[in-house]
């Protein structure tokens, strides 16, 4: 376990790295650390999120414990990321969810499902939960459109606002004297690096799991990401068909929402399962227990959403539809509520860190 004062600890470890530089080709962290002779709090928040957790530097380091230098950069970075998630979580009292991700996930999913079930029961009848429905508008006979869309939009808007506040605070803290790091060129570079998952490539070797390096983590992460986007697109296109084409769900198998939703759902489900499999066989030393808990909680919720979504599609004309809809919508709600206070936000801070790094590197080059 790490010392509590992560800034002192990372300052110590990175001064060894700056004298060594063997890991400079794995990722952007070591190049960025070299620009800093001493590490402050803002640097920790920056570097920790610039780290993509490929763990190659753990495998490559000749100074990992039990060596007296006790270098374990991925572990320290993971711990610092957990702190970022809590420190920049808004509002602060909700950010305490970061501390117990497992129970938060269970509690919010159960609460979400119960609420949706209650909404169904009160808006139509309890029997709607187990009575087969079919034809256009089948979902809304169980739960009216407004009862579905209004809370969903409200939750999404609330989450987005909270994350935006945290992100702004984060960007300020890591910027030091240079507050103008967001430029068209730094955004472009960062976007490319984020979409390509450049820093999960480990300089070409992949990620370190245990005794072997492979591209599986990057591959499954890509599935999750694009699967998730496809699902979002499916939902949006469904809303479009409904609002503008006046077609009510459930949609036919070969419609845009269903194809995107199914493809996305499968990609998401497979991607999450793959990430869990990689995680289970991974060496735990280069990470941190709190981060492992956050990872599993987030992956668990994603998988619940993906699988119930797919099940809903498969069994939508059976008597299971009502119950499945309740579980699916409940899990989606839980995912949205917890998103600003768990692993889900990682991409926000990571992206900001990438933008800053792109700017910084351009400045040295130019």
């Amino acid at each position: 376990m790490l010392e509590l004062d992560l800034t002192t600890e990372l300052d110590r470890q990175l001064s060894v790295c700056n004298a060594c530089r063997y890991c400079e080709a794995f990722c952007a962290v070591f190049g960025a650390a070299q620009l800093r002779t001493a590490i402050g709090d803002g640097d920790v928040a920056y570097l920790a999120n610039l780290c993509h957790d490929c763990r190659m530097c753990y495998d490559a380091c000749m100074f990992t414990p039990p060596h007296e230098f006790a270098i374990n950069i991925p572990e320290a970075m993971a711990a610092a990321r957990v702190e970022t998630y809590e420190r920049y979580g808004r509002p602060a009292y909700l950010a305490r969810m970061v501390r117990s991700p497992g129970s938060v996930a269970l509690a919010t999913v159960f609460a979400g499902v119960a609420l949706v079930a209650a909404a169904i029961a009160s808006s139509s009848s309890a029997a709607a939960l187990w009575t087969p429905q079919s034809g256009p508008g089948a979902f809304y006979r169980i739960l009216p459109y407004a009862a579905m869309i209004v809370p969903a939009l409200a939750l999404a808007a609330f989450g987005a606002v909270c994350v935006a506040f945290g992100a702004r605070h984060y960007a300020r803290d890591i910027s030091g004297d240079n507050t103008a790091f967001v430029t068209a060129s730094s955004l472009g570079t960062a976007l490319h690096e984020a979409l390509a998952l450049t820093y999960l490539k480990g300089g070409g070797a992949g990620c370190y799991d245990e005794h072997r390096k492979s591209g599986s983590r990057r591959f499954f992460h890509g599935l999750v990401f694009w699967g998730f986007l496809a699902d979002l697109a499916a939902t949006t296109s469904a809303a479009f068909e409904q609002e503008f084409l006046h077609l009510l769900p459930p949609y036919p198998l070969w419609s845009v929402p269903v194809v995107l939703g199914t493809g996305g759902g499968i990609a998401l489900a497979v991607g999450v399962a793959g990430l869990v499999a990689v995680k289970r066989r991974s060496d735990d030393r280069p990470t941190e227990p709190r981060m492992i808990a956050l990872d599993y909680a987030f992956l668990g919720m994603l998988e619940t959403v993906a699988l119930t979504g797919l099940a809903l599609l498969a069994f939508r004309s059976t008597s299971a539809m009502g119950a499945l809809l309740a579980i699916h919508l409940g899990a989606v709600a839980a995912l949205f509520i917890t998103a600003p206070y768990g692993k889900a936000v990682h991409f926000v801070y990571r992206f900001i860190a990438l933008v800053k790094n792109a700017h910084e590197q351009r400045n040295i080059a130019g």
Partner: protein
Amino acid sequence: MLLSPQAARTSRGRDVDVVVCGGGNAALCAAIAARRAGASVVLLEGAPEHMRGGNTRHTRDIRFAHDAPNAAATGAYSEEELYADLLRVTGGETNETLARLTISESKSLVEWMTEQGVRWQKPLTGTLHLSRTNGFFLGGGKQMVNTYYDTALRLGVRVEYDALVRELEMDGGTVAGVVYDRAGSEARIAARSVVVAAGGFEADVAWLAEYWGEAAAQFMIRGTPYNTGIALKAMYGAGARRIGDPRGLHCVAVDARAPRFDGGIVTRIDAIPFGIAVNAAGVRFYDEGEDLWPKRYAIWGKLIAEQPQQSAFAIFDAKVTGRFIPSAYRPVQADSIEGLAAQLGLDAAVLVRTVAEFNAAVPYGGSVRLGELDGCRTEGLAPPKSHWAQRIDTPPYFAYPLRPGVTFTYLGVAVDTQARVAAADGRPFENLFAAGECMAGNILSRGYLAGFGLTIGSVFGRIAGITAAQHART
């Protein structure tokens, strides 16, 4: 078809075709090459698994000749140029046949290493001065070692850790097998060929003391504590011919606060040419501006070893901070020279006088150009500082406490072009081979050529593996 070690045992009456003693670069190259040549191979690494890989864990780059840029290097570097570089650093003391063989074989190393899974780093800022002649493996030496182990294991090499080889069992003029520690008790393994690639003896401080006396007790050993030279002694015991100066050490200035062993690359101190060096008495003892890196870098270990308590201090001021490669430790810092002396445990009056005399000998207005021999020298000072002499007058003042840090030893065994170890009478043992640091002295008798230790180890490891396999299987 590759035979399993068990199959080899039943078919040949020996436990295994090839035993490789050691677990660093040379040993791994030998094991992989022997296995690829069809032999059953056991590799005995004296260190526990987490320490596997010897000093190779700490390496960064490898030198090789090449006619055109390739995956690892930016420009051509001919065999003749490499040979000339070798002659320069050794003062011509090299076995020309073996040296030329190493250099011509080095041309295929990048391709061979890549085939074994080693990846290369694109030349970056930190590597610029070597990017034409040397290849930098992605992630450094331990990453390369891990890759080699993965490949060796995948090919079916049997690896034993904590397996320190103590003795070679001889049967007349041939080796019959080796005796080694296995989990604390003695084990033996019969082999048709034996490759010794167990590094130098730099980690045996008592052995160093035979040549360096009490000073050895203050030496820092930059690499693995497992290179104690036991296998080297075993070869001498079997009648192998010695080569190399037993007192020969590659030794640099390292931070006195470093771990006694295994501090690796991050403890070396590169600050000396930027200020002055004083000994424990607070006085200067050598020209800090004599020559450029890397020559200046490699002389300071021995210079410090000759000082009282094998101790010295690099002293510089705020003007030059950030100009040299940092080390893992922050320098000691004070607002005055007296304050610095107090923290270093030096006599303040003496140190103040040393700095004042040095400053007085620096001609006014001398502006130094680091990175070239700029001729900014002291006047009327003994010893002089021949280049980069500028006053130490801008607080805060800084110091690094220094000790000699041993990189490797040059003592070894004589080998021939097939990596066969030579007996005292010069004739080769037919099935005893050596590769790496324990025979590098045939080629690099003294001095240092960055990245060439690995070249010798890889070339001779590969040759040893192939010849050992051929011998075992005919």
